[in-house]
């Protein structure tokens, strides 16, 4: 059941890895050094963290028929908040909590605009997308706010049981949220709201609160992603942190087979989508083509994957195969008579 749902993504990922291995044969090499695993695949797991984390929240938002364009800037805000708190000596736990609170607040803002004021999600989150980077720069005053705190840096480049901490973060967040959605009734209620908000509200679903909660979840995921990238470079880069990552996150969700029209969703598939995107990115870097080609290669690969995954193509392929078989059988029949 679950395997069937994520099969297209698994196949796409496998095919992609094969392709990358062709241009960079050592792609699958993993070695164990100084208590940690190293290799391109580990890099993918680590570097994919921001997009994967964003994709978790984005999946929920998209399931409600919304979209969150602000996650990239929310990353920058939360990174700036965390770096500011660390740099002014707040200590690790308060700094992290403050960053998460900033993410939740950003989500609350989006959620209120969407669910209460009734602005379309695209526009509501576009507003924060425009403003957010300004807010982040207000905190850092346009500088790269650096800090020296090994405990915080651990979230970017630390290792637990051989795996990088960012990889653990998205794995745990993803699996945790997926379990929460399916073990509680949240998943169904979110899907119902996304498919038909009016009917759900009439059936007693508290669609308003649910929508706000979903945007807050997205804000929290963005906060986590912001913490990862800030910890990674030991500094908050308000100008560039998370720049255009919202597009990658949305792409990941769609490659994961989730419909932008809301409804049925799969977080696991979205995570695979994020891995697919990161594999493309890392593959491009490893292959060593000139930078001018990066975008074209990425666009082409994404298009091919989407086309192959398109449900309509699948249906038509099935019909074509059946008609082929029918005509073959008819032919066999005729030759027999």
């Amino acid at each position, binding site marked *: 059941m679950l395997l069937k749902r994520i099969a297209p993504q698994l196949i796409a990922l496998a095919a992609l890895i094969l392709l990358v291995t062709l241009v960079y044969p050592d792609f699958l090499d993993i070695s164990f050094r100084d208590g940690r695993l190293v290799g391109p695949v580990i890099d993918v797991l680590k570097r994919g963290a921001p997009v994967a984390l964003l994709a978790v929240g984005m999946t929920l938002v998209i399931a409600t028929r919304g979209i969150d364009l602000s996650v990239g800037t929310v990353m920058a805000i939360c990174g700036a908040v965390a770096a500011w708190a660390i740099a002014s000596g707040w200590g690790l736990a308060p700094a992290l909590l403050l960053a998460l609170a900033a993410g939740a607040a950003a989500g609350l803002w989006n959620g209120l605009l969407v669910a209460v004021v009734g602005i379309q999600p695209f526009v509501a989150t576009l507003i924060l997308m425009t403003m957010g980077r300004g807010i982040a*720069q207000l905190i850092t005053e346009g500088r790269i706010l650096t800090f020296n705190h090994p405990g915080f840096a651990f979230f970017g480049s630390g290792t637990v049981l051989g795996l990088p901490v960012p990889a653990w973060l998205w794995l745990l967040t993803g699996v945790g949220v997926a379990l929460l959605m399916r073990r509680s009734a949240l998943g169904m209620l979110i899907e119902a709201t996304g498919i038909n908000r009016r009917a759900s509200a009439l059936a007693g679903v508290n669609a308003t609160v649910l929508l706000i909660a979903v945007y807050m979840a997205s804000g929290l995921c963005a906060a986590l992603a912001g913490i990862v990238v800030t910890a990674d470079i030991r500094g908050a880069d308000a100008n560039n942190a998370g720049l255009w990552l919202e597009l990658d996150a949305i792409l990941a969700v769609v490659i994961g087979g989730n419909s932008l029209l809301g409804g049925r969703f799969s977080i696991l598939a979205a995570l695979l989508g994020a891995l697919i995107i990161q594999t493309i990115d890392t593959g491009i870097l490893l292959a060593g083509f000139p930078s001018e080609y990066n975008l074209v290669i990425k666009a082409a690969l994404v298009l091919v994957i989407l086309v192959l995954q398109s449900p309509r193509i699948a249906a038509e392929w099935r019909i074509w195969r059946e008609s082929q078989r029918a005509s073959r059988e008819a032919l066999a029949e005729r030759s027999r008579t």
Partner: protein
Amino acid sequence: MNTRALPLYATIVIFLLAYAICWLQFPAILSTRVIANLLTDNAYLGIVAVGMTLVILSGGIDLSVGSVIAFSGVFIAVLLRDSSLHPLVVFAMLLALTTAFGAAMGFLIHRLAMPAFIVTLAGMFLARGAAYMLSIDSVPITHPFYDMIQNAYWLMPGKGRLRLIGVLMLLIVLAGMIIAHKTRFGASVYALGGGEATARLMGVRQGRTTILVYAFSGCMAGLSGIVFSIYTGSGYSLATVGTELTAIAAVVIGGTLLTGGAGYMFGTLIGVLTMGLIQTYIVFDGTLSSWWTKIVIGVLLLVFILLQKGLLKLSQSRLAGGVS
């Protein structure tokens, strides 16, 4: 009275109000210079927003336009540099190319039943990537024809220069209004935006309409690219990053619903001018730091949208009250 035109009226009222407020603070804003600048500086945006409006009316979205504008500039500049073709020939080639590009995206969207957001996102990467591959340098355009167009303007009283590209933008908006509101194609676009399944049952040729809509948007993006190349006299692959979002914001401020099926082409013009007014106001003010600039733009966007919503609610309840 028809309630569907209310957002349009609200937009116009708010724009005039905003202009009046700006004028109180900076009287120079009412000079012909500023008004002409508003048209010239936003000509490329207005043109691309016309295409975007049609796409959004059909219930879709086109994220590729910013990249297509950049690609167009580079394409024109490189071709004029490396060949002896006349600019008009190059324009024709370019428009054919971008229209085909838009049509191809429309084809994928329809044929594969894939969301427009994603297909045009890939198109956005592709067009910018193609621009890089043509040239990563910025390429100046030096052609007598370009000089001629750039110097074609009407000097209004008060030293404002009404340039050709500004006039072209107004003409395109007019054409857009005719297409959207006065043709069967336009009616199909609205129908598609109202609901795909229903539109199909009503006899909309969904495939053809979708492809045409994106082809139109591609064509407008190409035209906007031409205007942009005239405006800047060069082609640059990093130009107009994020213009798609500005265009979408302008369309939305113009009162068009992002969910499709409702809106007016004229509103888009007002939306574009509103975006231009915000920029002008910030420059006139001149005291905002980089970060406050971003925050203020966001806040103003929000204020416009909230005002629009408020005005809409008010007049609707007024209307309902009047009936009872």
